[in-house]
């Protein structure tokens, strides 16, 4: 814990992350103006004291929309990551513990999946089951499962040969008990670090999907959607894109700083 407080990147990342989490939780009460109210008399207004970040094509306040935009992405991305971690850890444990044919088959499938661009895989999934926040969580969760499974598998492989697993087998513990009671606590730090790394990717992933119209759906205020709607205007009306892009980037950087920091701690 003291080591965590001494790591500056970790602290900086955590501060930015906390800011966005606060926005997601209390955003609707923090905004100076209604993020959904259009003002057709003040469309595409430049940043000013009335509209700090300017207004968009419908005259909505960009600052308020950036604040509120943290909400959906910070629900969808962590849930998707959690789902992927849960499934991936279970799969990785099973494959690492049983090895043999199961390992060979699952590993080849994972490699095949990784050869495809993940966004394409996700798009096919969303095209098949339709798009909503719920389906985005499902699809990203499934897409991440093999990635996390691979990391957990290699951590499990180095545990399985230790004698405490043999001791559990000699006293007749079931495979389930050995995997989840004996081995899991020892591979958990690896899984948690992998989860924070994946969270950064998940945010990027959700933003990307929203940008191409398959992620979070209007009228929700969302950074990806805002960028998609306005990027053709970036030459003259830069404020309609840049603040949303900056928000996305700062969130991803914050998560990566935290992930890096945790990884260092886990290695110590």
């Amino acid at each position, binding site marked *: 814990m003291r080591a965590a407080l001494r790591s500056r990147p970790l602290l900086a990342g955590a501060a930015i992350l906390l800011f966005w989490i606060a926005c997601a939780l209390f955003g609707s009460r923090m905004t100076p103006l209604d993020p959904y109210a259009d003002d057709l008399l003040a469309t595409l207004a430049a940043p000013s004291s009335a509209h700090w970040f300017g207004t968009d094509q419908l005259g909505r306040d960009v600052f308020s929309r950036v604040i509120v935009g943290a909400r959906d992405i910070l629900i969808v991305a962590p849930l998707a990551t959690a789902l992927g971690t849960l499934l991936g850890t279970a799969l990785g444990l099973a494959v690492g513990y049983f090895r043999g044919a199961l390992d060979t088959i699952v590993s080849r499938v994972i490699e095949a999946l990784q050869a495809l661009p993940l966004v394409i895989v996700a798009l096919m999934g969303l095209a098949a089951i339709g798009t909503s926040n719920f389906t985005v969580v499902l699809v990203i969760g499934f897409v991440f499962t093999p990635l996390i499974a691979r990391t957990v598998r290699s951590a499990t492989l180095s545990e399985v040969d*230790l*004698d*405490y697993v*043999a*001791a*559990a*087998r*000699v*006293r*007749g*513990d*079931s495979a389930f008990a050995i995997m989840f*009671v*004996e081995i899991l*606590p*020892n591979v958990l730090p690896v899984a948690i670090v992998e989860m924070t790394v994946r969270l950064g990717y998940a945010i990027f992933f959700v933003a990307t999907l929203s940008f191409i119209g398959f992620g979070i759906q209007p009228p929700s205020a969302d950074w990806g959607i805002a960028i998609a709607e306005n990027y053709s205007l970036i030459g003259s009306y830069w404020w309609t894109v840049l603040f949303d892009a900056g928000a996305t980037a700062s969130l991803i950087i914050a998560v990566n700083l935290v992930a890096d920091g945790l990884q260092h701690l886990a290695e110590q």
Partner: protein
Amino acid sequence: MSAQASDALRFEHVDVMYRVGAHERRALSDLNVVIRTGRTYGLVGESGCGKSTAALAAVRYLARNGRVSAGRILVQGRDLMALSPLELRQVRRHSVSMVYQDPARALNPSLRIGRQMAEVFEVSEGLKGSAVQERVAAMLTRVQIANPRRVMGNYPHELSGGMQQRIVIAMALSKHPALLILDEPTTGLDATVEAEVLDLIARLRDEFNTSILFISHSLSVINRMCDHVGVLYAGELVEEGSNAEIFGDPRHPYTVALLRCLPRFGRRKTQGPLETIPGFLPAIGSSTRGCVFVERCGNATDHCRAQAPPAIDLGGRLTRCFYPERAPDLPHTAEDAIVRTTPAATAPQGPGAPLLRAHNLSKTYRLGGRALRALHEVSLELWAGETLGLVGESGSGKSSLASLLVGLSAPDAGGEVDLDGERVQPLAGERTQAQRKALQMVFQNPGSALNRSQTVRTLIQRSLRLLALPQPQREQRLRQLAAAVRLPEQHLRDKPKRLSGGQQQRVSIARAFAGAPRIVVCDEPTSALDVSVQSAILNLLLELQAGQQVSYLFISHDLNVVNFLADRIAVLYLGRLMEIGPTEAIFTGPQHPYTEALLSANPGAHAHDERIRLQGDLPGALDLPGGCVFHTRCPRKIGRICEEREPALLADGDGHAMRCHIPPAELARLQSGRDS
């Protein structure tokens, strides 16, 4: 000054500190060692006493958080601390060589032997081309490698551990160093290979006239190799003297206690338990006002507690004790234990049925399409309350046999295990609860055998479930077990990392005994432990056996330990049972030629020149020799028959069986001829 310059190594009042967090901890204090040219100096002590720190300081190669905080270290009269980086490199390049415990880590896995050995000659002598190849081959011949040209083309992993260590020694000696530092050079090797490597080191020392700093935890190895011996305890040199003085007439209570802990050659459990050293090594850097050994010393007085004894000169030898004359009369620790432990009833191998019967066990592994026969048609029996010792070199199939018996792997078709006359399923998961309870195991390395994320309480409780007790009784049983293995109750809350190696092994034993087993397979349970801890664990096993009538299958490479503990001994070689019989019969003979060689490799068994040396390496399990598997190394091979026909395991009337073409009477004649 000239006397100093002629010394290969001098430590003068050396202190070494390690910085841990914000604290500086002292690992060595006021160390004085002088190694004269051509002499071998042995540094002995238990783990954590500072042996390796001394070795690293001697080449100024301490870890980054370590530093020499006081004193001088001189190599051939040059002060190491005063050298510039360039000069230091010169010293390391030309004057000092080191050999570490694990040769596989000292060799570069991606370079052929010839290439990495050539580097020594290129760097230290500036040679090039075929001249280098000549020198490498010559050097390999000097370390008794029969086919140097072939070995030069090999990668390290293609060679056995003994070969690898010989190559590391060859590399170390190639530059004719003034000082050779050997840090546990034979610890990872089998007994017969160890004997061979030690012989080689002794011969090369005379040939090269090299001074040696020999570091080992093994008293018998130090005894065999060194002229002068220093005993380290908690970073202090507590006693120093000639080999004869230290081993024949020790004058520090620690040395006395350490020597008493060893199961001496020929000592049996019927003579009472082994001695131990009570208490623990003080933590590194903990400061005490008095003597470092005071907490564990039977001779300690208030004077010892108040003041640290200086090094006292006893006429050419030193001891850090106020009462060197009382050391030989150090009170014995085991006397009260004798009352507690009645020696286990001697081999109840009566007419009744055996408790465990293994029949025709074989284990073949598939390795890339080739068959690796780890175990071949081994049959043996275990009676209630007896201890069967299982010995053999690494690769002999000891651990394979253990894992078949406890159900970690299944034998090849045809192999059967009976418990109480009832057939048991091959895998533990398929056996009945009662059968699993009956057969438990203690592993070699408690660090690996104890789940590091569980507390001691959880570790033991998870095995207690085998008994299916109601909760209050389970808690009571847990406390009983902790008390039985002498584990203080406050440690139940701790994770294994917080315990010492000996305490961890106690937890491991408590866990094996949790389900009230009838047979416990002990796979080298003390080989990862220090001598003083080993004796305590062996005593504990004896005591538990006497109290609970449990049978042991005790696997060990240490023949003195097996001799001490076992009622009967089984000898494995390349997966074959070569000999089995009562311990007395095995040790007095006639023995199988392989057993004979194992026994004679055992330090303390024979005078040096009588030792039998096995020729060559253990054949690989992938290409086993035909006929008798031992014929390639057998010193008593009689001819073609050994190469062509595998002898049967023939028993005499008294349960002593061996697998040899030479009749026992003839073996007895041959072997008595050697001993007289």
